[in-house]
């Protein structure tokens, strides 16, 4: 466990640093309504790094950084320009174009110099798990500088983020502040994306800021909430990634999204008046039930239509309850089913045993001659064939069982789900139905009179 803790401390420190900076920038990005700007800027800086690579400079060198910065500046200028162009079309459209073109250009450059591909892959996947202490220190220093500058210029920056042409500012001033914002944004994203990967950076920018904005309109409150939730989300993701053996970046993104869902639920269930809360709670429960009933209904209908096809929900229930298709087989069929399962396991064990034998002989004892290797390979191949055969037997028998289940389970299941849905419908629309009735009666009355 201490090993794990030591492993997770640095990524956690890095994500705290990331959250502090990105959640703040995320508030700006939300106000500007260009949530994908970070992807465009990050991709442009990646393009810069690959161009540098194609010209013979490693991505980590000063020249590599210079190229990345230059391309980021071009991106900042483009985003500044498109804002004034974006009268007719939303700026997000331009942001999307910048992103796609930068990505395509990167692919073309990588095609010329394949060694740059590593950098591109790195940006895509990220590697927050293996971040180094020096990196965290560098991020902290860089973000402290950017954050301080933003604090000094907070008034004009926020005003410009709020609207495209704030009162009392000349067009040139707006352009200048826009460029300054995008440039600082680009520098931050460029630095973080090589460690955290595009997915995580995007989530860190948007999700905490959205959660903050759900609960408040005041910047300090939004920021405090965003920081708290962001850090909690990252911690949850890291812990989950360790406990469940998941890729770290993806686990963190999922955890942040989970917090967003929780925040949405909390907003409608906790942060409202008690009457409203009851109504919301009712809607939430009804929606959940409706989803369950619909899933059961469609699964049962699918079972009746195509019993031998994939039955994901049924398979899930079978696995959870331990009641397999074997229940629906005759004793002789059940024996065959169980034998097939046992045999396919045995054959796989044989394959593994031969594998271990061959692996051990690579470095100890007498080496196996080529012909012996070929013999092992052909044994393994036939064991694999036999496993496939047994699996086929299992599949056929399972299909048989499912064909019998189709009416025994499908019909009552569908019936119960339908009843449930009807009951729900009556609960959801009773007032409206009776209301229409009343209106109808009233209308008829008026016609009569």
């Amino acid at each position: 466990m201490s090993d794990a803790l030591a492993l997770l401390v640095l990524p956690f420190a890095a994500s705290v640093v990331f959250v502090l900076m990105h959640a703040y920038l995320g508030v700006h990005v939300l106000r500007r309504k260009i949530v994908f700007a970070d992807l465009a800027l990050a991709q442009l800086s990646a393009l810069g790094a690959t161009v540098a690579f194609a010209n013979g400079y490693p991505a980590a060198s000063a020249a590599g950084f210079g190229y990345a910065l230059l391309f980021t500046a071009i991106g900042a200028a483009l985003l500044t320009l498109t804002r004034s162009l974006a009268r007719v079309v939303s700026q997000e459209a331009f942001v999307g174009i910048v992103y796609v073109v930068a990505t395509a250009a990167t692919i073309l450059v990588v095609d010329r110099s394949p060694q740059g591909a590593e950098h591109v892959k790195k940006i895509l996947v990220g590697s927050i798990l293996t971040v180094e202490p020096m990196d965290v220190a560098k991020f902290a220093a860089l973000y402290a500088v950017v954050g301080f500058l933003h604090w000094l210029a907070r008034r004009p920056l926020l005003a410009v983020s709020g609207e495209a042409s704030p009162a009392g500012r000349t067009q040139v001033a707006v352009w200048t502040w826009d460029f300054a914002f995008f440039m600082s944004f680009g520098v931050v994203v460029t630095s973080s994306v090589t460690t955290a990967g595009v997915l995580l950076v995007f989530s860190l920018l948007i999700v905490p800021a959205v959660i903050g904005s759900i609960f408040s309109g005041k910047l300090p409150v939004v920021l405090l909430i965003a920081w708290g939730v962001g850090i909690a989300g990252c911690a949850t993701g890291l812990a989950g990634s360790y406990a469940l053996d998941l890729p770290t970046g993806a686990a963190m993104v999922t955890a942040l999204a989970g917090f967003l869902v929780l925040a949405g639920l909390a907003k409608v269930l906790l942060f409202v008046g008690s009457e409203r809360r009851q109504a919301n709670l009712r809607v939430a429960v009804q929606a959940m039930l409706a989803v369950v009933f619909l899933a059961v209904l469609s699964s049962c209908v699918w079972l009746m239509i195509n019993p031998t096809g994939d039955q994901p929900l049924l398979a899930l229930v079978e696995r959870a309850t331990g009641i397999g298709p074997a229940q629906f087989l005759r004793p002789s069929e059940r024996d065959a089913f169980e034998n097939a399962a046992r045999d396919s396991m045995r054959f796989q064990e044989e394959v593994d045993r031969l594998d271990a034998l061959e692996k051990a002989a690579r470095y100890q004892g007498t080496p196996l001659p080529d012909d012996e290797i070929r013999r092992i390979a052909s044994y393994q191949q036939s064991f694999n064939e036999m496993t496939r055969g047994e699996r086929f037997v299992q599949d056929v028998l399972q299909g048989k069982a499912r064909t019998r289940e189709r009416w025994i389970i499908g019909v009552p299941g569908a019936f119960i789900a339908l009843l449930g849905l009807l009951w729900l419908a009556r609960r959801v629309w009773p007032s409206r139905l009776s209301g229409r009735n009343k209106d109808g009666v009233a209308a008829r009355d008026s016609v009569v009179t």
Partner: protein
Amino acid sequence: MVATALAAAPALAAMRVVATTTDLAALVAVIGGDLVTVESIVPAGADPEAFEPRPGDLGKLRRAGLLVRVGLGYDYWLDALVNQTGEQRLMRGGEATLDASAGIPLLEIRGQSIINEGGHAHGMANPHYWLDPENAIIVTAGIAEALVRIAPGHRDRILANREGFLSQLETRRTLWSRTLAPFAGTKLIAYHNSWPYFARRFRLNVIAFIEPKTGVAPSPAHLVQLISEGRRAQVRAILHEPFDPEDASRFVAQKLGVPLVRLAISVGSLEGTNDYLALFDYNVATLAKALGARSP
């Protein structure tokens, strides 16, 4: 007049051979000599797993007199490309195509489908067989046979080229084996499972892999396990292939206090690996240096 034209003809109309990877291209170049012009479809240093064919590749294939492929699903994208050319002779089993994996003693036969996750197929068997220099004997036999079938008139030259290559290979192989002999049984961790054939030939023990699945970052639990396993087994180096992100490999190497060794998995994927023999010269020397640095 006629005689000179005839004599010049073979030189002008050198046989065009297309190989999917640089490794096979290098072997064809050695066996064919100046009788052939060789092109590879995947450029040197590119990742064959992440390869995306281009329109020019169709032209390359159409002009090819012989197509040499790695097989075992490694160059799985080739089938779609060949189908597009519509040339029967280039399709599987066609007279102008050679699956270089034929006759290779295959390692790590698995019962999965041919193409598994990430497009990189270790399904049928591990496909990195060219990293055992002995396997070059089998591969070049196949290449020589295919070339002779297409140009029977040049049989002697092709066979002489192969003999020359094999004697060179034998000399170098003795040298390589001698260089790596002190490290027999050495435990290593690799990023990708590229090295079973290399390990078998040079008696190395690759105990684990950093990459759980192609393109997926390792999870913390996997890294923790790797590090504790590496410590227990006293792993002496981390092998890393070019064009894969280095962070995780570097991290594990640091935690274990062992060198991170970048080896070339294909001809031309690192500087100084421009032909088949140079590939092994480079890998053997680099590995021996890294391991020797820690064992007095």
